[in-house]
């Protein structure tokens, strides 16, 4: 059974790689066995750092045990002071502390649900029978007792994924359970699921718990203690308050506003906080952030020194033309059907968006809020019906927003994506904002000038030369809004603008939205943030499956998933995946010895016979190996015209020569390409990457670190297509979608690369937090076996090319390397 552990920080500090200043320094904090602690503080203050430190995943092999006051780890971070988990160094105690992080996607290490929960147990070296007992038990405890273990994690909702991650954590029976904003990325329903699951688990589990969560409402009843981190005068994080939830939240001397902390609604104080919030929003909104006004107000100062011409003249006209009455309908969905391709998820949608007003699209995750917003904003094609725009907005353009070019679109409708990183297109903050001005016809100097003024208003001018990716979460969000506004659109659509933000950032975003709307822009926010709706909504449109929603969508289809076939035939699927790869090599490599039509032709015929014996018909073989069949004639042609010379020349022209030998060799090459590639495709088609990794580590005894690290990488690759789509849409909305195909491809690939490197970094943290790479011997939850059948397959695959080569040798056609 679980034994809770104590955690103790004394004089502890940490400095991130490449930073001059410590995140945390001189921290003293004792957490007793079995205590339930809530850690609060604004974004970036170091809460996650503390959790990672306890979990022993901060920096790779830290030089623990040394008495140096400052130690640099392999990742370049510097640690000082002491941190002990039950008297042990956290890295030694790795696996005794389980960490659950906020990004559900980054915690899905393996493809199948069951394997994911089992991953930590394998790393602890638990015996197989016990592993699966614990996997079922843990899934049951988080309310997923009914789920198939073979279900793919990519078909789970965010809430389900987080519960799978929680199951994986508690299956390890940790002494300390670390929860890092487990519900931050979820909609209210998912958040409720996860917090209920955590409650169920914590009721019976004696583990010590450290929780980080911005909104504590749902957690109060299971907490013993609240620790608030605030910044001291030196800018370092330190403990600003420490006590029971009742003491802390009813202490009038604590300035929660400046600490960036949400007070749970249970405490009366929040009413006061609420009132103050309203006031702040009203005051701030009065100040103007609209770039159209900015152009008018400050354009006089910008005169080209050479010609004395006013550089901004065209855009001023442009800005003036676009003044229109508040409350006028700008975009309207008329009997609109939305969905992907031909398949609609909702029909007959009618709703209107008005200038100067904030319209909220509310509803659960995954019902189609974003699909509707994207269709309205011209990023997705309507399935049926139409998106009608006002004459002012269209200003001469015909058709719906989807038919406009990217450049025409960005001047009219801007879309701010949920993940700001999907949207970045330039290397510096300044250039990022300049894009909008440049695309709408400003010259370079003018764009630079206007962009820096806009940045000043968004309080980002300090960073104008910084790389957008290096900003904090709230700053990134502000930057994306600023860069969208640069093209002075009349409609601004924001997808989940306040997702997982702390109170200060939240306030900034809310104020920003109000002032943008007050400048005459129609603002639409896709959100399920209750406070945001309460403070900002001029109009709320609900989307959902239930009857009382304004827009009713069809529920998502229930998926039933069995096991996917792992090969083209049932017999082949019983052969071990590693053996199937070996078979492919055995069949092909010997054939490289000789280049003659006889050995290749005989091998090819024998291979087809062998495939038939395995249950793959000739028809199936052709169907699945068609790319090889399509490529082979080209190889044939290349050898015919460039191949080695023979005695009779049929044709000669420059480098090209067709001779009797080249034709003969081409024919041989053609047959051999088929003999090598056809079985190489047919034998490995359908292999599941997890099964292959199991086989590689158990049968071939390859190092686990590489095998499972590689496996996680391959899984990550499969989720990239969604990102690719979104990055493409973001570029269209930024006005860059009209570029040449090749340019678009390369710039988009770069964004994708950055995104996947970031993903894989957090994935590797998740793997380490589950005890991967701790040096302990692993156990295997799944057995990869070889049977008699596998050996027969290997023998046959070795015999086919050998037989063909021997035959060629006796017939005298054998030719080493085509000699």
């Amino acid at each position: 059974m679980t034994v809770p552990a104590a955690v103790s920080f004394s004089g502890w500090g940490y400095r991130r790689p490449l930073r001059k200043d410590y995140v945390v320094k001189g921290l003293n904090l004792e957490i007793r066995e079995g205590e339930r602690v809530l850690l609060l503080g604004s974004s970036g203050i170091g809460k996650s750092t503390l959790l990672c430190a306890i979990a022993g995943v901060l920096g790779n092999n830290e030089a623990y045990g040394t008495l140096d006051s400052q130690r640099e780890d392999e990742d370049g971070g510097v640690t000082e002071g002491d941190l002990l988990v039950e008297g042990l160094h956290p890295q030694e105690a790795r696996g005794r502390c389980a960490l659950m992080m906020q990004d559900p996607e980054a915690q899905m290490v393996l493809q199948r649900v069951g394997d994911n929960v089992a991953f930590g147990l394998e790393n602890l070296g638990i015996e197989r029978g016990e592993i699966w007992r614990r996997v079922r038990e843990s899934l049951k405890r988080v309310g997923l007792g009914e789920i198939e273990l073979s279900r793919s994690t990519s078909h789970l909702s965010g809430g389900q994924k987080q519960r799978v991650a929680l199951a994986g954590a508690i299956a390890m029976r940790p002494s300390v359970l670390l929860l890092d904003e487990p519900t931050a990325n979820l909609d209210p329903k998912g958040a409720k699921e996860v917090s209920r699951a955590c409650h169920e688990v914590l009721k019976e589990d004696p583990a010590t718990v450290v929780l980080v969560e911005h909104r504590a409402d749902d957690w109060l009843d299971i907490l013993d203690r609240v620790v608030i981190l605030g910044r001291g005068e030196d800018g370092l994080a330190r403990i600003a308050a420490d006590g029971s939830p009742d003491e802390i939240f009813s202490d009038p001397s604590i300035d929660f506003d400046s600490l960036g902390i949400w007070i749970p609604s249970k405490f009366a104080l929040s009413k006061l906080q609420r009132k103050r919030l309203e006031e702040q929003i009203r005051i701030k909104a009065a100040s103007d952030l609209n770039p159209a006004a900015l152009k008018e107000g400050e354009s006089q100062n910008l005169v080209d020194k050479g010609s004395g011409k006013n550089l901004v003249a065209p855009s001023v006209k442009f800005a003036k033309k676009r003044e229109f009455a508040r409350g006028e309908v700008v975009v309207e969905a008329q009997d609109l059907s939305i969905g992907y391709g031909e398949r609609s998820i909702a029909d007959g949608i009618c709703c209107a968006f008005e200038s100067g007003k904030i319209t909220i699209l509310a509803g659960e995750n995954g019902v189609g809020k974003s699909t509707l917003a994207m269709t309205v904003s011209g990023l997705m094609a309507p399935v049926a019906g139409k998106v009608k725009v006002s004459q002012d907005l269209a200003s001469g353009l015909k058709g719906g927003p989807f038919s406009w070019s990217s450049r025409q679109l960005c001047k009219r409708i801007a879309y701010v994506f949920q993940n700001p990183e999907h949207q970045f297109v330039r290397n510096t903050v300044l250039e990022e904002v300049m894009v909008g001005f440049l695309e709408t016809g400003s010259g370079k100097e003018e764009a630079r000038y206007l962009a820096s003024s806009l940045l000043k208003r968004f309080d980002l001018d300090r960073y104008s030369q910084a790389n957008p990716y290096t900003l904090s979460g709230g700053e990134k969000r502000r930057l994306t809004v600023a860069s969208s506004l640069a093209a002075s659109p009349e409609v601004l659509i924001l997808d989940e603008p306040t997702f997982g933000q702390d109170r200060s950032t939240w306030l900034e975003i809310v104020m920003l939205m109000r002032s943008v709307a007050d400048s005459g822009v129609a603002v639409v926010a896709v959100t399920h943030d209750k406070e945001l709706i309460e403070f900002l909504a001029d109009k709320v449109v609900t989307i959902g499956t239930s009857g009382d929603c304004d827009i009713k969508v069809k529920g998502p289809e229930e998926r039933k998933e069995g096991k996917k076939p792992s090969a083209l035939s049932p017999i082949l699927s019983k052969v071990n995946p590693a053996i199937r790869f070996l078979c492919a090599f055995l069949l092909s490599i010997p054939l490289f010895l000789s280049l003659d039509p006889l050995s290749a032709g005989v091998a090819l015929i024998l291979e087809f016979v062998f495939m038939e014996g395995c249950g793959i018909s000739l028809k199936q073989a052709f169907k699945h190996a068609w790319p090889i069949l399509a490529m082979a004639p080209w190889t044939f042609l290349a050898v015919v015209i460039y191949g080695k010379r023979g005695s009779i020349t049929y044709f000669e022209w420059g480098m090209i020569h067709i001779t009797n030998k080249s034709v003969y060799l081409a024919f041989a090459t053609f047959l051999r390409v088929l003999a090598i590639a056809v079985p190489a495709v047919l034998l490995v088609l359908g292999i599941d990457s997890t099964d292959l990794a199991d086989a590689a580590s158990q049968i071939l005894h390859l190092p686990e670190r590489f095998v499972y690290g590689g496996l996680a990488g391959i899984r990550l690759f499969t989720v990239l297509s969604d990102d690719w789509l979104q990055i493409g849409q973001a570029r269209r909305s930024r006005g860059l979608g009209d570029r040449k195909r090749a340019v678009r491809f390369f710039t988009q690939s770069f964004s994708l690369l950055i995104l996947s490197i970031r993903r894989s970094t957090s994935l590797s943290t998740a793997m380490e937090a589950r005890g991967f790479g701790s040096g302990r011997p692993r156990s295997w939850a799944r057995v990869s076996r070889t049977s008699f059948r596998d050996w027969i397959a290997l023998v046959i695959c070795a015999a086919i090319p050998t037989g063909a080569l021997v035959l060629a040798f006796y017939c005298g056609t054998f030719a080493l390397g085509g000699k």
Partner: protein
Amino acid sequence: MNGLWLFAAPLCAVIVRKPGAALFCELLASILEALMGNIYGGASVIIPGFFEGLGAEIVFALFLYKVWNLWTACLASLLSGFFCWAESFLTDLQAISLSGAYGLSYLLFTLLSAFVTGLGSWYLYRAIARTGALDRFASGRAGRSV
């Protein structure tokens, strides 16, 4: 055109900067291609993948995994390209003379594109490092200080 396939090895190596990284990445990439289906030729892509990775790996090993700059990246890419060329003439293109006009021009073009790939992978690494995505790697910290 061959150059595009050579990206993985030098790029991974200059980022991770550990023995085996080039070979591991190129192999992983080819296994991924093999699993992705039939257009890449199934298991048979692993053979060129292995040789390309090996070529890049040898160069970095010769420098004892200590020299990481534009030139080692280009050299690695060149040897990787050379291996790729040699591999194709030992296998699919056996029938074409290595030293003939086609063989040599094929070599020239492969090396040229490999050189461009080497340059590309280095500048790509620099661009990635600038975004801060590599701060956890020694390579990401090498060119950056905040």
